[in-house]
């Protein structure tokens, strides 16, 4: 009897806890000062829609660190991962547009929109502030292989359809897009293998389990240096500055007319006061030209590149359109 009572009590306890968790998620993010705007007067929160440690997170932390110098207020990075970046993106979108909540915006957000994971079009519903960094993708093969140029690679692929297996990372992401654009433009048939992270794909390439990989330059870097991996071409508009990659042609130079660039930028909720937005834009431009920032970004394997809000938004929209078109044609999305 007594025992039964206990069990019931415990179950009641669980239920009451569940209720507590469900209720109360009202945001109260600081008050807005309408009369006179002195910005920033307190710490700024930067929401990162990814887990700590990835390149998006590290870039955001670099931006935060350098921006502090120029803003005179701390910038606190808060990770809100989950839902293929939609949770973090929604948090930015729904935040008070007072300039004290901003967020990182990157190519990853495209995936959730294109795949209809979210009803929100973030390119429209967020306020793009600045483009901070870009990165192309690189097509590389094992150094043991016979292919020295993209043309040789394509020739083999045409003669042996489906035989080449090419590794890339997340479905619907930039490396997948680059692979899709390449196969489409070259008119070849190669099998894509999705890997969980660039390292796993490189390991499979080095081990000879796959014949090629389309990954970011940083994933291959040291293997290019040790000559275990041979880069054939990269998907950017222009060649990379890195001495290791300066002899690697872009696909356009090699005669395949496409490009795919991963971008990393900063966005804010819509409806900020003009002065606040102007201040943010101004500071982020300074940050992007700061030598400390440039060095840190290069160390992360990205190329620092600034673009003003309008230009950034244009790029975001165009990329999203491209993703929708290519992945629909490919049958990845319905």
């Amino acid at each position, binding site marked *: 009897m007594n025992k039964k009572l206990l069990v019931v009590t415990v179950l009641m306890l*669980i239920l009451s806890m569940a209720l507590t968790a469900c209720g109360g998620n009202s945001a109260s993010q600081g008050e807005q000062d309408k009369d006179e705007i002195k910005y920033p007067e307190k710490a700024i929160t930067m929401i990162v829609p990814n887990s700590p440690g990835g390149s998006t997170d*590290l870039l955001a932390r670099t931006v935060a660190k350098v921006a502090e110098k120029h803003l005179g207020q701390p910038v606190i990075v808060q990770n809100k991962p989950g*839902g293929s970046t939609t949770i973090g993106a929604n948090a930015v979108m729904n935040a008070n547009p007072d300039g004290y909540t901003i967020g990182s915006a990157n190519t990853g957000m495209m995936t959730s929109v294109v795949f209809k994971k979210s009803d929100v079009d973030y390119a429209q519903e967020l306020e793009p502030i600045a483009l901070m960094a870009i990165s192309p993708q690189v097509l590389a093969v094992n150094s043991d292989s016979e292919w020295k140029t993209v043309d040789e690679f394509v020739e083999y692929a045409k003669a042996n359809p489906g035989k080449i297996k090419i590794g890339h990372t997340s479905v619907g992401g930039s490396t997948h897009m680059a692979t899709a654009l390449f196969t489409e433009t070259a008119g070849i048939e190669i099998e894509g293998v999705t890997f969980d992270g660039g390292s796993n794909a490189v390991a499979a390439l080095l081990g000879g389990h796959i014949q090629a990989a389309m990954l970011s330059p940083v994933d291959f870097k040291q293997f290019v240096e040790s000559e275990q991996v041979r880069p054939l071409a990269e998907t950017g508009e222009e060649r990379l500055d890195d001495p290791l990659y300066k002899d690697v042609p872009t696909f356009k130079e090699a005669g395949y007319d496409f490009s795919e660039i991963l971008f990393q930028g900063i966005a804010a909720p819509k409806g900020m006061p003009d002065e606040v937005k102007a201040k943010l834009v101004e500071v982020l431009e300074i940050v992007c030209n700061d030598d400390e920032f440039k060095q840190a970004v290069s160390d992360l394997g990205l190329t620092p590149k600034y673009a003003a809000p309008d230009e950034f938004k244009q790029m975001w929209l165009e990329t999203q359109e491209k993703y929708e078109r290519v992945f629909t044609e490919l049958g990845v999305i319905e």
Partner: protein
Amino acid sequence: MSSTVGSLLSGLASCLTPMNMFASVVGVLIGTLTGVLPGLGITGALALLLPASYGLPPATAMIMFCGVYYGAMYGGSTTSILVNIPGEGASVVTCIEGYEMAKKGRAGAALAVAAIGSFIAGTMGTIGLTFFAPLLAKAALAFGPPEYFAIATLGLILLFNISGKSPLRSALMVMIGLMIGTIGFDPMTGVSRFTMGMIELEDGIEFIILTMGLYGVGEILASICEREERGEMMKFKFRDLYPNREELKRSLPPMFRAGILGFLIGLIPGPGMTISTFASYALEKRLSKHPEEWGHGAIEGVAGPESANNAANAAQMVPLLSLGLPFNSSGALLLAGFMIHGVAPGPMLMSTQPDLFWAIIASLYIGNVLLLIINLPLVGVFASLLKIPIKILLPIVMVVTFTGAYAINSSLFDLGLLILFGAIGFILKRAKFDLAPLVIGLFLGPTIETGLIQGMIISDGNFMTLLARPLAGTMLKIGFAVILFSIGRAIYQSIKARQTAEA
């Protein structure tokens, strides 16, 4: 060989500067702390440290990162033993025997054995890393997706009935674990599975939330119902905090075995660290001279797994340092830490920056010694926590659990999940279901799935090609043989039982 020792000694010398020693102490302290606090893991701690380390010289920063990386593995067992809450996957199996020991007043012994075992196996792993890294790294590359699939499948077959109770119940729990592992978007096609339209489930269920709920919250709820079992307050003398001679003697062989086993399993990418603990548990249980004690606080069941995960931890540095390829998420973060300091670990590091390379390796030895020195006195402190009356201790533990769970993603949804899994854990516990198989299923499921799909693409959709690969084929055949053998033995035993009943 002798040149390796020479380089190592010069590495040691460069580690022993006051600055670097200080960095190492700070690193291992932070690591221990993140290990002790459930929820906060290596990943979170390193992410916070990365930007703070910009100003440090590369070697100093690397030494600090490695300290955190190693330290977290030491602290992980603490909450498992004291309050049955595993701080990460690699401490789940420690709960089984460790918590039973704590209930019997031997928490101090369990904690001390875990620390000593971590030191022994961690050092063994580091020795393996020092002398065989380039060789092992090459071997690891021979493992492609089909091999991961095969080895994970074999692991599932060998480990699913780890508790040795009802195979049917264990199989059921493994199935549930496998199913939970599929929640979220399919990594191959991008299709959402079992998310019921909740975007929070898109990326799957955070593993640590699940274990904290099932084990931690479930345990707290269960102990409210079982309060009479655990007495009012634990009384023990200070001397009783540390293992006695008998306990030490029984723990040493498992530690050394786990050192080797953990190192080998740790070379496998992905969940190697967690799987090594389960494998060590299974091995020690089979070898034990005291089979009746298992499930009731067998010290070998703490010594083995807790040692294995440290050796595995060292093994995961092998691909990271010699190939520059991290095989798990904390390794990926460590790599990020190296990179922001302009250090690219990999085939070139040993020849281009030998000083740095050997300083890092030497710091691993120093880190292990420091961790032992720090952790042994802490045993007394932690074990004394159990002197706190349970009605005060458990609410505090509950608060810490919820805080830790929230801190991972700052998400209220996760707290909801925590409560849900707490309730499930409570019910399963009352129904006498074993939770370990569920964790095994959850951990191995995704590896099996991606390995199979990638393997099938690589072999043009022909399963026979998979079987023809020497490594993968052999492992799959062994797995198949184990299943046949188990079925055969079960039939044989039931026939024999019937005969004795008739006779």
